[in-house]
């Protein structure tokens, strides 16, 4: 049921390596089949305490008062945490990349913006006791109007999900309330098109659903440090987040993970590590904080829903001359990773096709639902569903075999993409041909003769002489550092690869030396820039500096 079609691109590969290309057994497989692989929860601690959160029953509400006095008297309860116990009780995941404004409390103390948002945490001797005590925490709510639909949320007068972002939209580059893509002039192309094909597509919210739920166990370690066993997908991301939230030098934290019971993007949010470590700090005992399945499903961040509107200009012969996208990512109540998913998605447009005029406005919209985060296919799965469903509508409109249509419009080596970088290493045409052949679908001679290596470049490599730009969605009062903001330098040309890019390998007796010269140009790579202007993060709270580690030297994006 699987075949390796070595005849394709054979001259770009040498297939005589020692270990690479071999079906070697997984290093971890014996541990898996004997049940010995050490997942985070498989570490035993004497006197382990269990942490569970008190959660909002409302989509949107102000917190008048949190009364933990009853819960504190319950059997087995060691400590009850609220927002004031968290040293830096505000974070945004990508602050480690200096991207976005801290917008999400660890334990909310002023208001909640989604059902399930944590407002307090109970630490008790057993999980059952923690559950019982959670029910005894009294919260005085003032229920607020809420909004759940992305297009409702951006209408004037819609309930305000977050105070820092106007009209429930993330601000890109301190300049616009959406991410723009402008390449050529779609309106001109629409005016002269043989056909206009339009569509609306709704991608559903998806739970990553790893069989192991998210969690962490933290314990005091020797030398005034804390060890944290975690299911994270990103060890230092979680470590850095904990260091920031707890105002602790990262050197005091010892994270152990690496054996994870499925992630699929659901284990990057670093929710559990900070609270588990805080619990260990405040009780002096090992503390476990893990979601049960119900929390994993409804409180754990899903792949957010996406809504896409696509409009194509199409010639009689099936060539697509323009494609316009309006997209709405449902970020839920906080930013997490949705803002970033959109930039990735926009860089992916218009899909694997060469279209001379492309336009996109994509909005990161806040609604009163569980915040969205990463999932397998991050930023791409939803829009690919939209694009490829739309392609079938185009095929039907022009009466072309759907596979022929893809090959006709497919991008080839040397083509200019809408994000103004040259395509290379393409293989879409070949994939289409192989499937058609397997499925017994006869393609035209042209489609059969097409390759990704030919027919590209030339005219197709040109950046349009004229690109229609606009100031729609301009915002004031936001400042930006240089993260994801283009510097003065013009469009990138070819540049040298990083030294490791073309692996040298152990020469094998009788084998050819490693292929491809190290000087091969890499058009996808922008020219290396001098250090961007680093602005002092003057408006970042002192708290967030202490102990925080940064993965980016670039200055932050924040409000003036």
């Amino acid at each position: 049921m699987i075949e390796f079609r070595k005849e394709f691109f054979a001259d770009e590969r040498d297939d005589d390596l020692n270990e690479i290309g071999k079906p070697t057994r997984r290093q971890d497989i014996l541990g898996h089949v004997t049940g010995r692989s050490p997942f985070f929860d498989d570490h035993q601690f004497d006197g382990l305490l269990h942490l569970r959160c008190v959660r909002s029953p409302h989509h949107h509400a102000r917190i008048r008062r949190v009364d933990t006095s009853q819960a504190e008297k319950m059997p087995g309860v060691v400590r009850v945490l609220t927002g004031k116990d968290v040293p830096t009780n505000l974070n945004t995941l990508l602050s480690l990349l200096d991207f976005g404004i801290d917008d999400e409390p660890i334990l909310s103390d002023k208001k909640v913006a989604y059902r399930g948002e944590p407002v307090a945490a109970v630490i008790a001797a057993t999980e059952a006791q923690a559950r019982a005590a959670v029910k005894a925490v009294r919260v005085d709510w003032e229920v607020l109007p809420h909004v759940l639909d992305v297009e409702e949320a951006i209408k004037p007068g819609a309930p305000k999900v977050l105070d820092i972002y106007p009209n429930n939209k993330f601000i890109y580059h301190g300049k616009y309330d959406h991410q723009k893509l402008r390449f050529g002039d779609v309106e001109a192309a629409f005016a002269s098109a043989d056909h206009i094909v339009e569509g609306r597509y709704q991608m559903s919210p998806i739970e990553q659903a790893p069989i192991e739920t998210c969690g962490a166990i933290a314990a005091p370690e020797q030398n005034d440090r804390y060890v944290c066993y975690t299911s994270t997908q990103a060890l230092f991301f979680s470590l850095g987040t904990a260091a920031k939230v707890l105002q602790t030098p990262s050197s005091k934290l010892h994270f152990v993970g690496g054996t994870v019971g499925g992630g699929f993007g659901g284990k990057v949010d670093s929710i559990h590590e900070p609270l588990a470590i805080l619990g260990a700090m405040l009780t002096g005992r090992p503390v476990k904080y893990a979601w049960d399945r119900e929390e994993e499903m409804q409180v754990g961040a899903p792949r957010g829903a996406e809504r896409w509107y696509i409009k194509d200009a199409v010639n009689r012969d099936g060539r697509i001359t323009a494609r316009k996208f309006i997209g709405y990512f449902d970020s839920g109540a906080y930013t997490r990773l949705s803002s970033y998913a959109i930039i990735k998605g926009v860089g992916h447009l218009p899909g694997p096709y060469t279209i001379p005029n492309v336009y996109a406005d994509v909005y990161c919209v806040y609604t009163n639902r569980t915040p969205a985060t990463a999932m397998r296919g991050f930023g791409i799965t939803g829009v690919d569903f939209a694009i490829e469903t739309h392609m079938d509508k185009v095929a039907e409109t022009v009466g072309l075999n759907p596979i022929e249509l893809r090959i006709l419009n497919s991008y080839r080596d040397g083509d200019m993409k809408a994000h103004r970088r040259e395509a290379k290493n393409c293989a879409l045409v070949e994939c289409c041909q192989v499937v058609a052949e397997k499925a017994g679908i006869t393609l035209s001679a042209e489609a059969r003769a097409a390759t990704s290596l030919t027919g590209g470049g030339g005219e197709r490599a040109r950046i349009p002489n004229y690109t229609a730009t606009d100031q729609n969605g301009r915002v004031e009062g936001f400042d930006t550092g240089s993260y994801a903001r283009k510097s003065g330098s013009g469009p990138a040309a070819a540049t040298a690869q990083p030294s490791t890019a073309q692996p040298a390998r152990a020469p094998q007796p009788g084998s050819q030396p490693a292929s491809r010269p190290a000087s091969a140009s890499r058009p996808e790579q922008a020219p290396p820039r001098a250090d961007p202007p680093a602005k002092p993060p003057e408006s970042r709270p002192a708290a967030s500096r202490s102990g925080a580690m940064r993965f980016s030297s670039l200055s932050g994006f924040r409000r003036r």
Partner: protein
Amino acid sequence: MMAKTPVNFTLNGNDRAAFAEDGQNLLEFLRRGVGDMSPKYGCGQGTCGACTVLVDGETHLSCLVLAETVDGKEVRTASGLSSPALDPLQTAFMEHFAAQCGYCTPGMLVSARALLDRNPRPSREEVIEAISGNLCRCTGYEPIIQAILAVAEGRARA
């Protein structure tokens, strides 16, 4: 102080005794109380099968078994499959790449073992039925089905 109930049982053929807390399920009892980490927590609701163990030879969801009820009974878990030598199923799972994250694997193996113990030559449909209470999010099930069939058809090197 919570009431505790003494539980005497055999785990993978060895006599064990430990105290079960009031209302404690067998999964927590085996993991925290006895130290057998091979059954996994996936839901605590009886919907994923990661905690599957054998009680007197029948597959049970240990998260739904009241720990004190295994007093005097025989419990087998995935960690007992490899004593002394690897179970042919374990070898087949390795050869067929039937595990990725490995979290559902112990429960899956216990269900597969229970099937082969009462039906050494199951059909594909019987294999599918036997693992239908064990969820896997990584593999798409096919490699697991193939691994179990390989043992049943004697194709797997044991």
